[in-house]
């Protein structure tokens, strides 16, 4: 019998929610902190990955859902690869963000949330990422019009950014987005 089949009966609702969202059981964590040690962004986080995992186990909803940690996560998968207990920490980071958005928590790093929204809106509309359109979309959300303006101009001059979106596959992505949304809504209510 593997350890993952051991059940721990009383667990926090947040841990339950994370499990439903990601299939990850944070109760397997034994706090070795390998995940935190290897995380390239932990220096900028308010709680290190191991601490966030622990807080989920404790059911510290407020702390977890308002933490900057998952929003700073670069999805580098170092934690996931190194965890001796096979907790997919990077997936837990995704799950926390998804739960926080669903609960209506204001994202603690708003520009990252804006970036996700701008990028997805762009993919849905264009089928493929149209960088220039996405950048404009992001700027309209963050009001930070000067960030990387010089870099963008230089990329444009080097022919690295397209003027016109391709729109190939736009109908397909639009349909997929709609069906996913419908499915997720249905799942929420059942």
């Amino acid at each position, binding site marked *: 019998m593997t350890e993952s089949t051991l059940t721990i009966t009383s667990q926090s609702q947040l841990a339950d929610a994370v499990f439903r969202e990601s299939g990850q059981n944070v109760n397997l964590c034994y706090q070795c902190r390998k995940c935190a040690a290897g995380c390239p962004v932990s220096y900028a986080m308010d709680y290190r990955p191991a601490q966030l995992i622990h807080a989920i186990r404790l059911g510290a909803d407020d702390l977890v859902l308002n933490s900057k940690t998952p929003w700073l996560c670069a*999805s580098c998968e170092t934690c996931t690869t190194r965890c001796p207990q096979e907790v997919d920490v990077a997936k837990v980071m995704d799950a926390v963000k998804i739960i926080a958005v669903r609960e209506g928590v204001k994202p603690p790093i708003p520009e990252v949330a804006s970036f996700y929204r701008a990028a997805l809106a762009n993919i849905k509309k264009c089928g493929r990422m149209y960088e220039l359109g996405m950048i404009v979309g992001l700027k309209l959300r963050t009001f930070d019009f000067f960030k990387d303006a010089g870099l963008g101009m230089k990329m444009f001059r080097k*022919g690295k950014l397209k003027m016109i979106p391709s729109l190939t596959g736009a109908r397909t992505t639009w349909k997929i987005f709609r069906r996913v949304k419908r499915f997720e809504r249905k799942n929420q209510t059942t």
Partner: protein
Amino acid sequence: MNTRYAYYPGCSLHSTGSEYDVSFKAVCDKLGIGIQEIKGWICCGTSPAHCTSRLLSLALPYENLCLAEKMGMTDVVAPCAACFARLRTAIHEANEDPEIAGQISEALGKPLPKSVNVLSPLEIFSNGSGLEAAVARQLPELKVVCYYGCLLTRPSKVMQFDECEYPMAMDELLRSVGITTLEWSYKTDCCGGALAMTRTDVVLKLTRDIFEEAKTVGANAIAVGCPLCHVNLDTRQEEVEQEYDVQYGLPIFYFTQLMGLALGVPTDKLGLHKHFVSTDELLRSSSKGQLAAG
């Protein structure tokens, strides 16, 4: 030429990473490897999708695998490390969990392909033999460190690609076309790709660490296999230099550009002019070295 691989370029290779696209195709051409672009491919969803919806992040890549199957192909090659990771993750998760596979198929409104493989160009090029014989140009001045980044090898259970903490696939490939690659300890460290648009401060710190280590081991160029890494290391290098008051001047090549050079693809056919950090000086000294040697 027999078409053997369905080619999934992904969004970056059609825009910010177009050098990777042209150099990948040029190398395939030289080696007689047939590729055919997937018709009507769509974005794989990348980080914003998996940070927002698990189902969406699996359905988008799968649509492309369905399209490849429709073309009658089972082997898909995805040069962008981020796309490669998303495509392999989708297959892995669908195989592990029939329920999620059912949901993906519902989201796409069609059955999922039964057998389909996703490959990195590193894999398809190392499969072929006779690379040594195809070398047309020596590049003795180059001292390259191979930077694999995060997504080619991690998580190892999903990616099943090389040794996850210290991969050698790119080193071996470049060495087999006569290019010197050096040992270093930053092969799979993160450059902060996902934060490139938002938290530049993090990216500048992480890329500085990479440049420092590359310089310390005596490298004069970095080879990459990911367009997000390329954007961070190449287009932001000047910013890093200003921020930390240092001078690196390290050209960043896609490994396919280096292979192309070694295999005799004309320099102007590899998209090198699109780089921010110029490759001219390094390549000029390299061809001088060659003349002197010859």
